[in-house]
């Protein structure tokens, strides 16, 4: 008969898996926000890059906990790029290119993980 800690671990693993599905669904929805932040930044809105940093920070900090190391890693990369953008002149073509590439990698990884898990943003 399993002891309390063993059954607690099983319940925790099951709940982490359930919340992982919700994480994927929410993160798929946030791809729109990421795209909008980049577009706004390209149009000169510095505040948009701060929002991008917050969104990617959340994904970075949460992804691996729910079993998505690739998403967490690419979100961390994009978070670092957003920080770098905050220290750079708006419109720096190298930063813009790196942000766009980072966003593409994160988008692809989220889409891949969602497809593998059978999750869509509509639930």
């Amino acid at each position: 008969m399993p002891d309390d800690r063993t059954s607690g671990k099983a319940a925790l693993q099951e709940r982490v898996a359930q919340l992982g599905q919700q994480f994927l669904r929410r993160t798929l929805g946030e791809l729109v926000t990421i795209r909008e932040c980049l577009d706004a930044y390209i149009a000169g809105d510095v505040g948009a890059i701060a929002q991008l940093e917050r969104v990617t920070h959340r994904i970075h900090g949460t992804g691996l906990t729910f079993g998505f190391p690739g998403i967490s890693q690419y979100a961390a990369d994009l978070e670092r790029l957003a920080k770098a953008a905050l220290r750079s002149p708006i419109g720096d073509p190298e930063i813009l290119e790196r942000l766009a590439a980072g966003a593409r990698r994160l988008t692809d990884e989220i889409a891949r993980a969602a497809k593998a898990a059978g999750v869509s943003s509509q639930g």
Partner: protein
Amino acid sequence: MERALLQNVLYVDDEPHIREIVEMALSLPGDLSIQTCDSGSQALALMREQRPDLVLLDVMMPDMDGPATLARMRADAALASIPVVFMTAKAMPHEVSGFLQIGATGVIAKPFDPMRLADQVLEMWQRLAHAG
């Protein structure tokens, strides 16, 4: 000062799913009482009522972030001595060093492993106890 056994922990994070996982993870040893809340201001109110042994604080939260919450604690005689551990994705060495400099007891990096979290917290508490 000798510290007693760890009994009461307060976890503060604006992410509800992470709060739920942390609460479950810290419940695994079976002898910890865990409270959670979603903001620094709520945390300060709870601390005044219940005086937890240890506070685990997220860093990036809207309104009052983790460092601001810690600063308010250190400025309040009733809360100043409660140890604070930051749980954060901001865990580069210079960031950790910065958190320790402003008075944190330790830092647990996010993403964390839910199965290991209780052990990490208890190990940190033991180190604190031995440091006196």
